[in-house]
């Protein structure tokens, strides 16, 4: 279904959804930083820049409770968190790189263990994607086979048009349902041309060659020179739309507390630190190697997909300028 929606009507749509009790999540400014978050009205939406954190947190929160406990006398009562309580959500203004990563995550969260916390949110969320008209030299979606107009992962996809408004295309039933319920806000396509799309400057990686090299180079001096500068923070993993490692911690007191699921990052020293004190990934190069391996080899081995959508966040915000695009490009040339 191909339609047109004006900017005004898009906002009207969001306000209507909010009024109907739907949770509308979209990029907005949060204490000076563009972040996804629930809107209270359409006015706060920010569509001209890539949010700092990816859209994955709408399905895989950086922190969520999964169980609570309480002791009364000698009795301990446990309460599971029921995912049924998650609210129906429309996720708006998701860039192709963010949206494309979500179906990639489906694979791991519904593999041998079905993660209802992820899956229930997934079921209850409609994703409205948005094509990119701007890119910087950290963007590399095209290098991993995506593009600024790729609707992968979107239920409904918007493309900004010359003269304002958006071309609007539905890709799933959820997308169609959203349109149909608000059909009067949409019009037939008016024949305007799309705004020029962004042109990320990196060349396309030969992902087969990359994987082939990774297959044979678990041990390689290159890792040292790549990651000697890595300081071991979690910025890359936490900003990444596809990284999905988490840690489960119990927090609270002797009397009551919560079991919580938090984002984790393979760059952290503690990530593979054993109780014995031994750490198989004792230095940063081994940890960084895991990041590359996981994205371009292990995930491919297991699910046939690449765990990177080229959003460039890890490049922009690496404290020490580690550039995954440069590294993978280098590997692909080996």
């Amino acid at each position: 279904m191909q339609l047109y929606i004006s900017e005004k009507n898009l906002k009207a749509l969001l306000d209507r959804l909010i009024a109907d009790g739907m949770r509308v999540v979209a990029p907005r400014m949060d204490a000076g930083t563009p972040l996804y978050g629930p809107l209270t009205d359409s006015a706060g939406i920010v569509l001209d820049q890539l949010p700092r954190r990816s859209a994955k947190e709408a399905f895989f929160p950086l922190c969520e409770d999964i169980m609570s406990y309480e002791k009364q006398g000698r009795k301990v009562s446990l309460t599971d968190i029921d995912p049924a309580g998650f609210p129906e959500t429309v996720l708006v203004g998701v860039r192709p790189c963010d949206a494309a990563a979500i179906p990639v995550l489906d694979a791991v969260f519904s593999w041998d263990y079905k993660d209802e916390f992820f899956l229930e949110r997934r079921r209850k969320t409609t994703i409205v994607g948005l094509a990119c008209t701007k890119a910087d030299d950290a963007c590399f979606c095209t290098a991993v086979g995506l593009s600024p107009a790729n609707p992968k992962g979107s239920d409904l996809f918007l493309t900004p048009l010359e003269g304002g408004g958006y071309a609007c295309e539905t890709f799933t039933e959820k997308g169609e349902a959203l349109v149909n319920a608000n059909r009067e806000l949409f019009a037939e396509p008016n024949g305007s041309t799309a705004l020029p799309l962004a042109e990320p400057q990196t060349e396309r990686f030969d992902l087969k060659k990359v994987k082939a090299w990774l297959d044979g180079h678990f041990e390689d001096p290159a890792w040292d020179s790549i990651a000697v500068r890595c300081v071991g923070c979690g910025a890359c993993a936490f900003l990444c739309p596809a990284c999905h490692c988490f840690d489960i911690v119990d927090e609270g007191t002797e009397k009551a507390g919560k079991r919580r699921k938090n984002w984790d990052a393979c760059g952290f020293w503690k990530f593979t630190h054993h109780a014995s004190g031994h750490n198989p990934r004792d230095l940063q190069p081994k940890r960084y190697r895991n990041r590359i391996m996981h994205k371009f080899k292990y995930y491919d081995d297991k699910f046939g997909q690449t765990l990177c959508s080229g959003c460039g966040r890890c490049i922009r915000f690496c404290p020490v300028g580690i550039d995954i695009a440069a590294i993978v490009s280098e590997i692909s040339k080996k």
Partner: protein
Amino acid sequence: MSRIGVFICHCGENISRTVDVERVAAEVGKLPGVAFATDYKYMCSDPGQGLLKKAIREERLSHVVVAACSPRMHEKTFRKAVESAGLNPFLCEMANIREHCSWVHQDRKEATVKAIELVGMMVERVKKNRVLPTITVPVTKRALVIGGGIAGIQAALDIADAGYEVILVEREPSIGGHMAQLSETFPTLDCSQCIMTPKMVDVANHPRIRLYTYAEIERVEGYIGNFQVTVRRKARSVIEEKCTGCGVCMEKCPVKKIPNKFDQNLGMRPAIYVPFPQAVPNTPVIDRENCIKFKTGKCGVCRKVCGPGAVDYEQEDRLIVEPVGAIVVATGFDLYSIEEKPKGSPIKGYGEFGHGRIPDVIDGMTFERLASASGPTGGKILRPSDGREPKQIVFIQCVGSRAREKGISYCSKICCMYTAKHTMLYHHKVHDGQAYVFFMDARTPGKNYDEFWRRSIEEEEAVYIRGMVSRLYQKGDKIVVMGSDIAVGVQVEIEADMVVLATAVQPQKGADALAQKLGISYDKYNFYSEAHAKLRPVECATAGIYLAGACQGPKDIPDTVSQASAAAAKVIILFARDQLEREPIVARVREAGCVGCFYCKKVCPYGAVEEKEIRDRQGNLVKVVAYVNPGVCGGCGTCQATCPSKSVELDGYTDEQIVAMIEAL
């Protein structure tokens, strides 16, 4: 899972009157980990302790909380009881529901709720308590005594007589200190040298005392029972082992006119000298600053005349390391001088007395030397300026002492008595002379002291004028003393021939530097601080270091000797054991986490933190970490609060224990 036993004490009715103890026991019994909870009339009584021990055995208790009075009262009692029942004493904690609850609140409901919470906190705390083994440290049964005055001599003799070795270190060439300088002593007027010199000889002859004179403390390391003391033996230029003390060198020395400090610079001595004839050891020292040989390279007479060949111009300072288990500090005092003090000094001089520029204004110690039969005048009271006998003499008390505006607020304690003594000595020696004493108060607490003072007035005709002197000035060969007599309310002017100032008692110069070497604390005047003003007056806060004599505060001879013997007794008590036991509330370093920033070392008040190298199996240095010496650690925990990674933990007050209590709130 812990099996905690909780025992709630009624304390007769002291607790149960305000706190519903049964309810506390019932509520606390429900807490996770509590296996047994009960209340009892008097937990500290024999049956109460019996109940505790029985429950530990029968209920197989792992930890114990006693909710009763303040732990300051009975923690030791209950820990002992717990220990006798086979548990580690540090698995027992007390909740204070008396001083902190039942006695300070009246509302029964509120007090009961509070008591339940207080006990709950201790239950959570005790769960995190660990078994702490008692710490033992070996004891080196040798003592160091610093200072060879009467205090040091007494302490050294007492310790040595008890059978332990003593190292006695004295800065001057001879032991004897100030007491050796005195003429006669109050309140008996017996000759100081007569009672002092035998003790000095005892020291010299004692098989267990090793005497280092002309020596100073260079460095002190270690801790109670295990000190390593480095002593600097200054170059004497005379080999003690060879010298027979014949004195020929002193006779032949061409330099004769060096003011002798022992005689308050009134008498003269040669460049090679013993400070006074009865010196111990009777071995001369070459004063290198005044010796022609050292100044010009010519001379060398003393070496030529020395039969045994004891003179050694090449001798150098020697550093000797002595292991000791205890240290007695007996560095004594010095007299305040009225000279102009450097700008910015908290202690001021006396411009109104001419800053000490009038030659016949002398201090008490100089008067002692004048009065001493072995002194520079052979016991005659003569003016330093012209050698005439003073017919009018004025004594001024409290010069510097009790004078806040001069920077010293304390009473020097001995001046009232020695001034009374001086008036008597003066009257005995100058029959037609008149002594005046300006005084603020006469402080004479001591056996036979007031009688002595009264005698100086009633029998020896000293005129006591209550009031201070405002100014002194030289007028011709007289000294005009302007003062006030506040008893009569008139101004007084006396034209005196000599003025004697009872100047304040101060710690020895360099007392602060020595304290820093020893790691002991001192007050703003540099007097050393005792651990407790009343109950631990001879101990320092630093374990294993004891104080004797005027280095701790002004003292007369009897007090000094008493304290010296007390310090010796403390040392002997310490040496009576082969090992020291101490409460294991000490800090421990978790080496895995320590990065060696040594913040702990920087803040440790005890100097207990050392640097320790961690090496791998090949011997390569992995890192340098902190190590807390359990013998030295005082257990304050400042290190832990300061450590950024909490890699040092104070046993008994670990983060886990404290957080458990906070979380129990």
